[in-house]
């Protein structure tokens, strides 16, 4: 079967972006194509998959065609991929499967979201429509509430306190401080993170990722073309995805994400890689408790030991076996919903090619992982990348 290589990757800075949709997408595409070592042009693309929740409703239909029109990909077979915050993680998976199946040779996967030009009311509306609207939202839940329920239950079931989440927040802010693409470039002290404004008890402002604007895109090619474009392709060694009940209360466990477990098992199996071989992982820390769960569900920590993992600083850059969220993660780099998944891939692409700014480089990075979750865990896509095929 065809192997898949990533030969280019680019993104806008995440944050409160001055550019509109077309401007952000075209910037990400421009950067992705210019990152390819040898000539690769938008009009060479066979297929494109673009993740988005829909820009706060401003372009619900034919979103993808609007974007390709403004990025030199006129005529390309394109569609929007929607799986809430995992939209572009699934766009990446769809792109990977398209090449794997032999249906296309050059495929763009990307994502985009524009949230910060919405009123506070509209923003809250769009942020809360990816849970179970009928049975969760109308009981007063938005995602801060859902993850707060998970965090409190986690503290009850395991040897963990809110301080463990503070460690996650401090680490990710520290990682993001040096990242020019990050939304919140702030070095946050333990005491400051610990005493943040209570958003959803027990989660404070420092446990919650920001709402960001941004776009990201990667270029995948079939193996026979990889070396035409670069001498250092990054191979997509494995892709896995899974789903779970939409509502938290319908799941057997409140402190595990089954979708992550299913997705990572498939990805590890296809890549023939063990969790212990991963050098860096970009995990979906929309809330700090989500990173704690991810370290367990992805196999970096044992069940109930994610809090201890964070407390011991095991995910800090170049301090443990694996660096968790070298980019700053969603917490610091930002979370432009549909752009987050391929944004994670952009970071791994640069890290594995040893092309990030010096203080941010994960030493001897050979294998990286991305973990992109939709909503409170209803969908998840995991990808494993390597310098070696």
């Amino acid at each position, binding site marked *: 079967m065809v192997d898949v290589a990533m030969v280019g990757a680019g993104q806008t800075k995440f944050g409160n972006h001055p550019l509109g949709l077309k401007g952000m997408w075209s910037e990400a595409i421009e950067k992705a194509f210019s990152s390819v070592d040898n000539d690769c042009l938008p009009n060479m693309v066979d297929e494109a998959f673009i993740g988005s929740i829909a820009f706060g409703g401003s372009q619900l239909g034919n979103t993808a065609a609007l974007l390709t029109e403004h990025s030199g990909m006129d005529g390309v077979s394109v569609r929007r991929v929607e799986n809430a915050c995992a939209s572009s993680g699934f766009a990446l998976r769809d792109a990977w499967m398209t090449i794997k199946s032999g249906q296309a040779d050059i495929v763009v996967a990307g994502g985009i979201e524009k949230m910060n030009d919405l009123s506070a*009311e509209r923003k809250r509306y769009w942020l809360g429509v990816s849970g179970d609207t*009928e049975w969760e*939202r109308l009981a007063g839940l938005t995602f801060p509430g859902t993850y707060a329920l998970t965090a*409190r239950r986690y503290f009850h079931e395991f040897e963990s306190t809110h301080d463990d989440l503070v460690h996650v927040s401090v680490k990710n802010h520290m990682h993001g401080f040096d990242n020019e693409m990050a939304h919140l470039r702030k070095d946050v002290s333990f005491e400051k993170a610990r005493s943040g*404004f209570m958003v959803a008890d027990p989660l404070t402002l420092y446990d919650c990722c920001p709402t960001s604007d941004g776009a990201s895109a990667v270029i995948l090619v079939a193996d026979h073309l990889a070396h035409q474009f670069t001498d250092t392709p990054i191979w997509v060694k494995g892709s896995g995805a899974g789903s779970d009940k939409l509502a938290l209360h319908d799941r057997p466990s409140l402190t595990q994400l089954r979708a992550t477990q299913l997705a990572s098992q498939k990805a590890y199996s296809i890549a023939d890689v063990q969790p212990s071989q991963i050098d860096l992982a970009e995990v979906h820390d929309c809330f700090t408790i989500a990173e704690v769960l991810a370290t367990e569900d992805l196999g970096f920590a044992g069940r109930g030991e994610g809090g201890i993992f964070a407390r011991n600083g095991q995910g800090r850059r170049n301090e443990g076996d694996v660096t968790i969220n070298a980019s700053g993660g969603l917490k610091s780099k930002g979370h432009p919903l549909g752009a987050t998944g391929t944004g994670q891939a952009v970071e791994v692409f640069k890290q594995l090619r040893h092309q990030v700014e010096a203080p941010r480089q994960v030493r001897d990075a050979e294998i990286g992982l991305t973990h992109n979750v939709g909503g409170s865990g209803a969908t998840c896509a995991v990808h494993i990348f390597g310098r070696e095929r």
Partner: protein
Amino acid sequence: MPITKSSIGNTVFATSIYGDQWAGSDGDRLTIALQLLQSETASTIQIDSFVDSLEYTPSTPVSSIIESTTDWRVDPNGQYRLIASNSSFIVALTEDGNSPKWPDSSPGKSIDVELKTALDEAWVTEVSGVSQGAYISQSQHMLAMPSRLGLHAQEDASTIVWPPRQLNAEGVRIPPASNKLDSNASILTWTRLSAAGAPSEFSLRAPLLGGISTVLVEFASGPKGVFMLADDENGQASIGQEVSFEVRRLYGQDNLIHYGLKALLI
């Protein structure tokens, strides 16, 4: 919220704990009436004039709400009549064909007048305004009403299923609800959302109430669910604590009031 009952002859009256001046932050004549009916031996009931006394139109018919949440059956020729005062928050259940003589006003628990006024205004704005909230259609509210208001549950291969599901893993349609969940449940986890963290449906009322609390509970028969916590001014939820349920207003949208169950700490 407990109701206060009194009687004159064969007519039973009910008010909220605030007397006949207010039904509370998420109560109204209908929520008082439902509690009154639940506290009396069920029979058949006429509701025509009662429906006219409601401040806002419910998103589902009052008769369906009554029959989903109580054992009473609505009948134009019913044995009893449900009546509410148009000028105060008092509800009467009577066998008498004549209009009841309403009892003298009773004070009840003291009311924070400023808060009451602000909440009443918030409801007016919320119901009549164009909401930025999530949209659940009237037909969907109607379809799920027995489960939402009456905790009616399905059974699939000896497993109690709630909220309702369509097909099981074998692709077989799960039969309609035939069970009723327990009236109490145990808190597995809870949170209190600040006004800033609350869904936009609650954006007018949440700041006035200092946020909203939500509990995730487990029923003894297995299903779990999330509910807003009502009347939590004087208590804080804890894991393992028992809750009961009452019908309250959830939110207003498109000139309709949507009702649902809320949890109360026991």
